[in-house]
């Protein structure tokens, strides 16, 4: 029985670890400026926790087999109530490891969330609703026009869906779309809103996730570094259509971005 336990615990440990190391299923490739730092912190955590995992499981499997009851052949049981020195050693080691990891990650978090977006970032407002994402660009005046909850009409889509108040001069040139366009290598200055329930704006390839909360306008930023199409998911349970609340982020060159925006502006006139 001891041997069976040892074999099974070790097998579970090695098989589980193999798929982590082989990266058979892994994070989607990171395509934003923050991705390398986040991924490095992930790797550091993964390596240290992985070592503890393998050591602890192997030790467990080993001691239950090694110290199994073998009747008369058993070694004498060590009558002991513990060892204070050992307790202090592993308490200190664990504390250093855990708190150290935590502090290493904090600087990345601070860079992501404490600093406001840099000047010159592309302003985009993201609005979540059951079950769609809308993206608003302020247009040439650089100002988002007013919205009015009474004007919200989700079935009409785009401008009407977020309740854009067309009487406000600032909203005349606002562009609202269901697909997000961003120029590559420029920071985006996001304002996240939700009109009904909580949604979460999740772009795995950008290593970006943030809840959009009714009543709050949450400011965030990230910088895409590769041209391409990236899927946007909703990561906060928002109702029966949660699983199909998705969008597309198209990262294009600055030139193509300008062209796209100009076309959309022209359509509005």
């Amino acid at each position, binding site marked *: 029985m001891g041997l*069976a336990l040892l074999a099974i615990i070790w097998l*579970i440990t090695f098989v589980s670890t193999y798929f982590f190391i082989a990266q058979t299923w892994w994070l989607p490739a990171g395509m934003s400026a923050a991705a390398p730092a986040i991924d490095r912190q992930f790797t550091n955590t993964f390596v240290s926790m992985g070592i503890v995992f393998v050591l602890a499981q192997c030790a467990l499997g080993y*001691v239950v087999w090694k110290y199994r009851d073998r009747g008369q052949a058993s070694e004498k*049981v060590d*009558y002991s109530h513990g060892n204070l020195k050992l307790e202090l050693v592993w308490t200190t080691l664990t504390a250093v490891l855990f708190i150290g990891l*935590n502090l290493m*990650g904090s600087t990345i978090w601070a860079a992501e969330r404490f600093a406001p977006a840099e000047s010159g970032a592309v302003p985009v407002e993201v609005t979540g609703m059951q079950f769609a994402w809308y993206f608003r660009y302020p247009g040439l005046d650089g100002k988002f026009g007013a919205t009015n909850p009474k004007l919200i009409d989700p079935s009409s889509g785009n401008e009407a869906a977020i309740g854009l108040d067309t009487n406000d001069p600032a909203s005349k040139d606002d562009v609202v779309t269901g697909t997000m366009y961003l120029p590559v290598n420029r920071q985006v200055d996001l304002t996240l809103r939700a009109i009904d329930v909580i949604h979460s704006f999740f772009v795995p390839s950008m290593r970006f996730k943030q809840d959009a909360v009714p009543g709050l306008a949450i400011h965030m930023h990230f910088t895409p570094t590769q041209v391409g199409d990236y899927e946007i998911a909703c990561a906060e349970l928002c109702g029966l259509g949660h699983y199909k609340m998705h969008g597309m982020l198209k990262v294009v060159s600055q030139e193509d971005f300008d062209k796209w925006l100009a076309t959309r502006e022209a359509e509005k006139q």
Partner: protein
Amino acid sequence: MATTSHVHAHAAPQGFIRKYIFSLDHKVIGIQYFFLALTAVFVGMFLSLLMRVHMIWPTAVLPLVGEIKPETYLSLLTMHGTIMVFFVLTTAPQGGFGNYFLPIQIGAPDMAFPVLNMLSFWTTFVGFVVIIAAFFVTGGAPLHGWTGYAPLSALTNSGPGEQLGADLWITSIAIFCLASLMGALNFITTTLDLRAKGMTLMRMPLTVWSWFITAILGLLAFGVLLSAGILLLLDRNLGTSFYVPLVVVNGQVMGHKGGSPLLWQHLFWFFGHPEVYIAILPGMGVASQLLSTFSRKPIFGYKAMVYAMMSIGFLGFMVWGHHMFMSGMSPYSAFAFSLMTMCIGVPSAIKTFNWLGTIYKGRVRFHTPMLFAIGFVSLFVSGGLSGPFLAQPVLDIPLHDTAFVVAHFHLIMGVAAIFGIFAATYYWVPKMFGRMMNETWGKVHFFITLIGTYCIFMPMHYLGLAAQPRRYSQFTELAYLQHLLPLNRFITYMAMVTIAGQFIFLVNLFWSIFRGPKASDNPWEATTLEWTTATPPPHDNFGGHTPVVNNGPYEYSVPGAPRDYIMQNDPGMGTAAH
């Protein structure tokens, strides 16, 4: 410190109803809680099976249930989580085994407040009936998840199931909170006031410590959830705006104004995080008790174990914000919550080291309860080590609300806690029902469950890394999820096998209760007080006398002793005791 107990003795009841239904005997109430949790766990498990089936065969028409729609999937998910967390993980270890064995292990004839004890069980029972009723009302069960985030949960038109079903859901939780508060008061008072002579705090079995600390957590946590729940009911039914700002649902402007969706999250997780420890602490106590008993060796670092549980309980109230790193809460507070969360990993690690230290140089007997205790340690390590990932706000960016989180909490507070419950069941059923459980089938059940649960939950980490969001009923809409389908299928197959394996346990349990070989008073050669009395124990637990405690709880293989264990009420062994 310890006092003799004689105040609350009540005569053994005679009629069937007073004896088995509205009983004041903590042992009968413990068994009632146990069977309530057993019913609930099979309901909860069945719901999870339907979810897994729907995930990989979305259009399948199932016998009895019909076709599962995406909203039905979310109802299943909500009810699975709520039933498992409240009516299984909180009910079985604390209400069940705690009720039965806490008084006996401290040498008391009953709980401090037997009537309150009965009331708390029947209140829990009503809570269970109410939550089950949510399935059968118009609109069905709510779809807002067991965490019930507002405004989704606070509006009646945010989705199917958000009408009467959601009201029943929150009412049931409020009733459960009341019951748990009553239970917590009883556990705390009993532990402090009814210990037998010589049962000092530092001679209490670690199981008693775990139930005691769990009760304190319950007392502080359930009150907050109860208040939060009442506010939610007001928002839903009386048009208040605690949790709901101005929102527009389906083009309709709702009447709410100025509420804060984050308020609900703060209140919920102020309860919710201690709740995790409410579920796992009794498992830690049982694992400690069993590892020592079946390794024939004193527990390694008894005091460190007690202080570790205390610090887990204490820190457990300061970490709730780690559920909210992506919520829009101040990013500065994430620093503090993250640091405290990493700190709570330290006492958890101490416990793991001490469990290994207990087995080390022992003489391990592989009875079924011991296998589950060993499995508990393995699962605790596996589930625990994903904690330091999720405790870091920066890693929550990719991992929050993905299957990685589902893997983490299922391994640690789901499966590890259930292993604690299984270990306790195989260990104590002989004392409770006077008959041994079948060892062979117990071992078969253990290996199926250990391998099965690892096969279910280990791959969920991979899914989470690959950014599969949790609470998705189907993976058809996002292209990047397509390559994960084979892995999802594998998990569903493994869930079917593991669930089938649980019927081995069920049959073994009932067969053994009625037909198993008779159990002696102390079949495991253990040391704590429940093994000093008759099997099953008489109405007043010790047959008219009160035990006197002379020894610590885990005196195994004491050099020079005539046998390899010294019971707590054996004549004193001098300096070796605590």
